[in-house]
């Protein structure tokens, strides 16, 4: 492999790690607060959709600053999509595992409809939107690769997230609500319902941001297979990092290497790239097994699993 090819592959790995870090953070925050958000995939898709729509609509008027507007818009859209599951949980006691997975499928069909309907490119041949103009693309930060500024954004989000979680009052409320909701409510006078809802929205915003970053940094257009399941890999990313935002950066990089490597293997050696999700699942199971064996020796009362589903409010 030539030096240039190695450089390009490293770039691809970091590019791949970017949405994994962002969605990994989304999952880590949610799980910390006791919210099992399996819906990062759908939130990412809706974020990407909104971001593409904003850029196509206002790109010409706003020029380069469209990127900022669009990234914010994508985050808000992701939060909005998560809000559906958050409301269903708060008002109707609907288990978010089920609702977020249903919303993932619905998001996929919304994208499928839009790229064949209202948002389809002008020639109406391909199921995708028009390609973004150059000024609406995130700058490349490593010459000779596809590595874009979104990677820096993801790392910054990880560091900021870690600081919020460990050193702010909001972070304390979040962790308290996740650890033991009744104690947090009674002893800490924490509004658990409100905290839960806010964390759910923030989780959705991070996943939505991941989608917007993909649009402006990688795909430059909206189409159906925009995400090869980032939102599901994110669960492995977050769990392997023990839900610690700083470690999410590391595990996100690890899975980026794994997935970009799997793609290269499929291209060069014909090994199916789906093997990556097998490895991811085995990693989740390995983490669970290690944790369980540790817990069996030192039982910790009040962990999220101690709350019966019937009592989940």
């Amino acid at each position: 492999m030539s030096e240039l090819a190695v450089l390009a592959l490293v770039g691809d790995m970091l590019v791949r790690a970017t949405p994994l870090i962002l969605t990994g953070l989304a999952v880590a925050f949610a799980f910390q607060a006791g919210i099992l958000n399996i819906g990062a995939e759908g939130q990412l898709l809706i974020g990407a959709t909104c971001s593409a729509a904003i850029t196509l609509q206002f790109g010409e008027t706003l020029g380069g600053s469209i990127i900022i507007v669009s990234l914010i818009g994508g985050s808000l859209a992701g939060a909005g999509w998560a809000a559906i599951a958050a409301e269903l949980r708060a008002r109707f006691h609907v288990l978010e595992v089920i609702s977020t997975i249903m919303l993932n499928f619905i998001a996929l069909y919304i994208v499928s409809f839009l790229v064949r309907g209202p948002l389809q490119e002008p020639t109406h041949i391909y199921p995708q939107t028009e390609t973004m103009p150059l000024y609406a693309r995130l700058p490349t930060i490593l010459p000779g690769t596809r590595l874009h500024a979104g990677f820096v954004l993801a790392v910054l989000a990880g560091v900021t997230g870690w600081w919020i979680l460990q050193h702010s009052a909001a972070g304390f409320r979040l962790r308290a609500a996740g650890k033991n909701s009744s104690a947090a409510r009674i002893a800490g006078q924490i509004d658990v319902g409100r905290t839960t809802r806010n964390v759910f929205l923030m989780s959705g915003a991070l996943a939505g941001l991941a989608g917007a970053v993909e649009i402006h940094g990688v795909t430059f257009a909206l189409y159906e297979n925009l995400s090869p399941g980032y939102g599901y890999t994110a669960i492995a990313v977050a769990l392997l990092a023990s839900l610690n935002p700083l470690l999410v950066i590391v595990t996100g990089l690890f899975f980026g290497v794994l997935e970009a490597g799997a793609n290269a293997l499929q291209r060069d050696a014909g090994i199916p790239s789906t093997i990556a999700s097998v490895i991811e699942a085995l990693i989740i199971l390995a983490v669970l097994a290690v944790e369980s064996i540790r817990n069996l020796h030192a039982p910790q009362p009040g962990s999220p699993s101690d709350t019966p589903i019937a009592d989940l409010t």
Partner: protein
Amino acid sequence: MTEIIGPFLEGAVRTATPLAFAALGETVVERSGIINVGLEGSIICGAFGGLIASSYEGTWLALAAAGISGMAVSTLFGVFVTRLRSDQVITGTAISLLSLGLTGTLYRQLYGPAGSALTTATMSILPVPLLSSIPWIGPALFSQPPITYTLYAFVPALWWWIYRTHAGLGLRAVGENPEAAIAAGVRAAHVQFAAILFGGFMGGVAGGTLVIAQAGTFAEGMSAGRGFIAIAIVVLGRWHPVGVALAALIFGGASALQYLFQTMGWNLPYQVFLALPYLLTLLALAGVAGRVSAPASLGTWIRGW
């Protein structure tokens, strides 16, 4: 009128059949206090196992192989949940991810990177004499592949087993009050493990039905969230076999609305019909979930053993 309603009802029963198998299995699992989100994994493994077996054996044996494939993957879930006491939802999610990845990988290895279009012999439709000539509902209910008829017998059998046998009482006791059940001499961990294996088998049969009695082929990810829809159906059916079967039928009906719309000549984007079952799941759960009582210990660890 018959030519409009006929395909709709037939489609409703056809779509409902695999959902009902999976949901009835999950009913037993949840009655034991366990929620198996890995059901999706059992369905896709059953579909794949059924495909492989159907190239060697007849349709019934292939369906049994599908059930065993689904059970095999649920064994892993059972070990993690009842032995290691891992978080049920995270374990189940991992099992689903594992199964989808594994079947995809094996399929591409065996049948080429893109997965060549592969068809298998399907279970042919066997109309029941007399019953199938009842107007409207006759063809829908009694002109189906025989696997659907086993479902009709299975629903009352499961009801009888859960509510009228000693073993069924033990199952319900473990789900409602595990500590008391253990004190009464029920081996709770064994009951839960057995329930999980049974649920896995039924999930596998559901996947096998998709391949062997319906599609006649396998596609990566063809379970398409049916495992999660089945879990919602269990809630809608209030953990009761008859309720669950009816809830599955309602879902089948919603999915089959596209046939009705097509024959009526109403044009809607096809994605609306594809998204409908998921949308309906959300609406149904919002309407029902807060007002029904789940088995009391659902989703928790059993303490004290």
